[in-house]
């Protein structure tokens, strides 16, 4: 089945073209086309995965361009990581397709939405089976395009338009780093193939500084795509897109592409201690940084967005700590529980019609199923024992600890505490307490929306058991081809992690559930800190001041260049033509002698030139 892996991305592509051409007529039926396409993709991907579990890596490629001695190839590769990602992406995509049928009901551009979803899914699936950097880069950009189109889906809203542009530009900043790194690698290695690059790294063809440089440059691309500090600001803004999009692209799949890229190139990173440390520090810092912002946000989707940024930071921390297995494990579990949380949030937004958590409350009784599912997701992400998040986070803690990143370990623990706190703050504010919204007819979402959430909830609980220290590290063994040695972690670590997350939940309950602690505890005692957090550390303002200022200055410079130099040249030309014309018109004065004189002067000039250049005689 592995040789058929190339067909997986083609179903969504087919759906994209079909909906683009015939979507207007199909209307609601578009949803079924998209769902069918992604479901078939999922089935094939599952078959590929089953095949890969027992088999070995399959790779097929063809020469695309031959430039001198360098050959650019296209093809696909089914490694353990690729097969795993294929299944995750197609599964989440299928569930989101299904969910969106209910969520987007009645939207005028329903079929366009599904067409974009198809395009995105195609690009993401193509990205994860690419055997070389160049192909990865192409799909990487296509994924960015899909994200741009979907964020800007409500393009008539100014915020959505701005968010789409911001997402495109911010990720582009990272992509430039990726591109430079890729070209540098190509210059050094002479190939874009992953296998060739790893071989060059092992042989020492690539010098140590070059390994570090290219690794960090490519990591810059991952920073942009995965919303790591300092390029994270686009991700919260991207929440202007429809909620299913947030679940699919900005929680489960696309933002994980950065993690995937670093994981796919992991041998390159392993060769450079500096690059690993950079990844770890950026990841750790992003984890605590985004988590602290999420503590005080009041927009339900923004809280989840910052949570995503924070969790992606965890993954980067895991990678930087030398454990790609932990990163992929957390990527998997995160894909499930974060998609679940987003879909549940979408369900709430769908019902209430607002995203402000201050205006929600008491939804537990109105939407019991959604509330229960959200609770499962929140417990999973908080790292409550026995749920998936607990195992994957534990793996990351262990990796950070064993790799000697003591500071980063404690940062991760604190971030975990924050995570538990903000998730349950969200839960208690939205579902607990009294109703604060005006809407009367709040009711449970239709089955087409709750069913995907149910599936995801089951996965959120169960996904952790594919890789646990208790029952076996199946995923790690398989991903590393049996060479995975689970580091013996101190037993207190799990207990600390569990206690920390339960503490966070307890504090949130005290503040928002039981209200024994005043809600304005932080804002009244440390208004400065509160404001800094509420304004997301003023990063956007900082960019507006620095980047905006510089860009303004440059554009002003060019404005003056244009105004005075270019226009000066232009008006010089017109002035010359004008002067020549007025001279000519002055000669046309109707006097025969002037005409005669001019004619004769011309003749004399010609004769003189002829005579003195030797053409004469």
């Amino acid at each position: 089945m592995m040789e058929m892996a190339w067909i997986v991305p083609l179903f969504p592509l087919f759906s994209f073209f079909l909906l683009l051409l015939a979507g207007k007529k199909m209307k609601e039926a578009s949803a079924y086309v998209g769902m069918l396409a992604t479901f078939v993709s999922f089935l094939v991907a599952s078959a590929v995965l089953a095949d890969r579990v027992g088999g070995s890596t399959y790779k097929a490629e063809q020469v695309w361009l031959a430039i001198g001695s360098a050959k650019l190839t296209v093809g696909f590769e089914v490694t353990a990581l690729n097969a795993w990602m294929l299944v995750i992406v197609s599964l989440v995509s299928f569930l989101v397709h299904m969910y969106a049928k209910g969520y987007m009901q009645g939207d005028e551009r329903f079929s366009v939405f599904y067409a974009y979803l198809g395009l995105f899914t195609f690009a993401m699936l193509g990205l994860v089976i690419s055997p070389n950097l160049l192909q990865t880069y192409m799909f990487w950009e296509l994924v960015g395009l899909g994200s741009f189109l979907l964020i800007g889906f409500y393009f008539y809203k100014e915020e959505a338009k701005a968010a789409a542009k911001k997402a495109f530009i911010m990720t582009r900043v990272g992509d430039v780093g990726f591109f430079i790194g890729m070209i540098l690698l190509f210059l050094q290695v002479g190939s874009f193939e992953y296998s060739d690059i790893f071989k060059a790294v092992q042989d020492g063809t690539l010098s140590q500084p070059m390994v570090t440089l290219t690794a960090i440059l490519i990591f810059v691309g991952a920073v942009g795509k995965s919303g790591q500090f300092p390029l994270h600001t686009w991700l919260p803004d991207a929440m202007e897109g429809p909620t299913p999009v947030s679940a699919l692209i900005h929680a489960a799949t696309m933002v994980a592409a950065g993690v995937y890229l670093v994981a796919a190139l992991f041998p390159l990173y392993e060769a450079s201690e500096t690059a690993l440390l950079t990844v770890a520090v950026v990841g750790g810092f992003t984890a605590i940084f985004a988590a602290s912002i999420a503590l005080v946000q009041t927009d339900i989707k923004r809280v989840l967005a910052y949570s995503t940024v924070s969790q992606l930071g965890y993954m980067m921390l895991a990678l930087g700590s030398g454990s790609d297995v932990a990163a992929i494990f957390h990527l998997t579990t995160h894909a499930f529980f974060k998609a679940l949380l987003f879909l549940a949030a979408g369900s709430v937004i769908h019902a209430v019609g607002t995203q402000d958590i201050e205006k929600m409350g008491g939804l537990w009784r109105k939407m019991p199923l959604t509330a229960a599912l959200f609770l499962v997701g929140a417990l999973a992400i908080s790292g409550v024992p026995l749920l998936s998040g607990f195992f994957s986070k534990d793996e990351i803690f262990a990796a950070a600890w064993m790799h000697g990143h003591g500071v980063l370990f404690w940062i991760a623990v604190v971030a975990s505490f924050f995570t538990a706190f903000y998730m349950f703050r969200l839960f208690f504010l939205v579902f607990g307490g009294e109703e604060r919204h005006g809407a009367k007819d709040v009711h449970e979402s239709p089955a087409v929306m709750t069913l995907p959430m149910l599936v995801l909830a089951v996965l959120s609980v169960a996904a952790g058991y594919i890789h646990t220290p208790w029952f076996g590290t199946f995923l790690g063994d398989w991903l590393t081809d049996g060479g995975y040695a689970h580091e013996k972690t101190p037993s207190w670590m799990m207990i600390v992690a569990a206690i920390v997350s339960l503490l966070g939940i307890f504090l949130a309950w005290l503040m928002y559930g039981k209200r024994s602690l005043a809600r304005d505890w932080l804002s009244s005692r440390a208004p400065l800190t509160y404001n800094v957090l509420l304004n997301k550390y003023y990063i956007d303002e900082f960019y507006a001041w620095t980047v905006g200022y510089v860009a303004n200055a440059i554009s002003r410079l060019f404005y003056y260049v244009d105004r005075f130099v270019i226009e000066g040249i232009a008006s010089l030309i017109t002035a010359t033509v004008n002067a020549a014309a007025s001279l000519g018109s002055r000669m046309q004065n109707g006097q025969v002698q002037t005409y005669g004189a001019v004619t004769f002067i011309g003749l004399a000039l010609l004769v003189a030139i002829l005579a003195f250049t030797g053409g004469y005689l």
Partner: protein
Amino acid sequence: MSSVPLSAYLVLALILFCIGLYGALTKRNIVVVLICIELMLNAVNINLVAFAKYGAHPGVAGQIFALFTIAVAAAEAAVGLAVLMALYRNRKTVHIDEIDSMKH
């Protein structure tokens, strides 16, 4: 037998032609312009007659051409004068720089 060389006649004709040309291009009175043109024609005639004697193929043809030129010049002078008279009757001027009705 030493005779005046051909080039002496040609240079003389050149000088007269240049004088006539300059006059025709700068003189203000139409009558003077006309006689300057006559002078230029005369310079050409000198050339023709000189070549008739000292040219590569000497013969009477050059002289006959000179005669034709004189005849045409006479006709030209007559018509030129007639135009001048008509112009003067209409415009009351003999100054060439005041006659610019072909300007536009």
